[in-house]
């Protein structure tokens, strides 16, 4: 099994959930995050004091998926999120050694 991890802009969450619903992917988990990357930070000025703000609001989306569907899941996210502008984000694939679904006790691919 694989864990597909995506750092994307917050307003993309709805789109991704919508897209996921139309696939066989069983679920996903979203975590609020702040990101720093090529996307230029900006300067915020509070009462005259200037601060270089490098961190931009992002979300981190995690999808657990079986080995076979991992690449297409990656592509699916890529497709949904792509705008071509800096800050679109990244998708990663990690290997998952084992999984259990707590409710049923199913393990491995069955638990995905």
């Amino acid at each position, binding site marked *: 099994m694989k864990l597909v991890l995506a750092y994307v802009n917050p307003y993309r969450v709805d789109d991704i959930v919508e897209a996921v619903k139309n696939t066989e992917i069983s679920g996903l988990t979203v975590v609020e995050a*702040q990101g720093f990357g090529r996307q230029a930070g*900006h*300067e*915020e000025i509070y009462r005259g004091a200037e601060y270089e703000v490098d961190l931009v*609001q992002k979300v981190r989306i995690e999808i657990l998926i079986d080995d076979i569907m991992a690449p297409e899941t990656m592509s699916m996210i890529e497709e949904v999120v792509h705008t071509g502008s800096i800050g679109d984000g990244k998708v990663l694939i990690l290997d998952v050694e084992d999984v259990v679904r707590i409710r049923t006790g199913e393990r491995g691919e069955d638990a995905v």
Partner: protein
Amino acid sequence: MDSGATAWILTSSALVLLMTPGLALFYGGMVRGKNILAMLLKNYIAMGVITIVWTLIGGSLAFGHLIGGSALEISGTTILGNLDYFGLRGIDLPGTESIVGGIPNSAFMMFQLMFAIITPALIVGAVAERMKFGAWTLFIILWSIVVYVPLATAVWGGGYIGENLGALDFAGGLVVHINAGVAALVLAIMIGPRLGYGTSAIRPHSLPLTLIGAGLLWFGWFGFNAGSALAADQAAADAFMATQVAAGTAATVWLLVEKMVQGHATTLGFASGAVAGLVAITPAAGFVDPLGALVIGAVAGVVCFYALRLKAIFKFDDSLDVVAVHLVGGIIGSVLLGVLAVGDVAGGSQLVKQVIAVVITIVWTGALTAILALLIDKCIGLRVTEEEERQGLDISLHNEQGYLLTE
């Protein structure tokens, strides 16, 4: 000078001022977190610029003729006051007339200023999360001079609606709520729906903020309505009572309808119902007894609830439901008062007068708001870019962030 009346009008003026921050929170809680500051500022800014406009010319234009001197008249009907009191200078000097017996003209002018502030602030709910800050500021400055001031004169300054037609508006059903509601409708249509409206879930980011706001609004509304008696007397106490009864009833009724229709009574429903009741009782507060207020509240609770559906039907994105609450609520109160008023003002023809006054207000505000908005749109544009809207107005317009909780 009646020190009790003066104390009450000063207190009421402060209460009405507080309603604008209250409204800001009420609205602010309903937008997404990325637009909270932009929403707050679009409300607060009215406390800035309208104060200046009113002090320099607005107050004098609206009510200058009641202090002394002549008004702009057309065939005997007062259209607008004068500019003799530019900068509100000398409004209480010896030789001036007292607008309201017992209280200084400066107290009256400040009380009225607070109404002039909150009225444009009410409109902003319709264009939440997408309007430019500069365009908004320019809009309310012009709108308050072109639309608000003449209407205030027409209703409360001895002008056509109040004097010639004889329609009643105790505390601002026409001048404040219908006025703001119509402007909201026009702006919502002209600026178009938010990105993602109707497709993605655009939910309130902090209902506790909204509830704080609703509490402050309810509190401040006693100044709004009972202060409109312009004295600390039986009429003020009665208006206070009507206000409380209508608010409590509308909130309760809204919850009941919500529960029956949708399955759940909600916090936002209570707040919405309360505000709807407060809106509806505003024009009538001084004219109905508690049971009349109860009826008005109950009607507002039901009708404004169903009026939320208008925007889905007619497909405009009145983001925070200014139309359903203020336009519809204002009409309910303005019209029902023709039926429910007790005492001197009760009478068959009052209902007709009220309806005419409502229609005049809708036409007046609708037309002028559309022209103003069109002008501003052509000159500087009403709406932020898609990119700015997506990023959120707090960062894109104001370069600030609402919440930072990492440390």
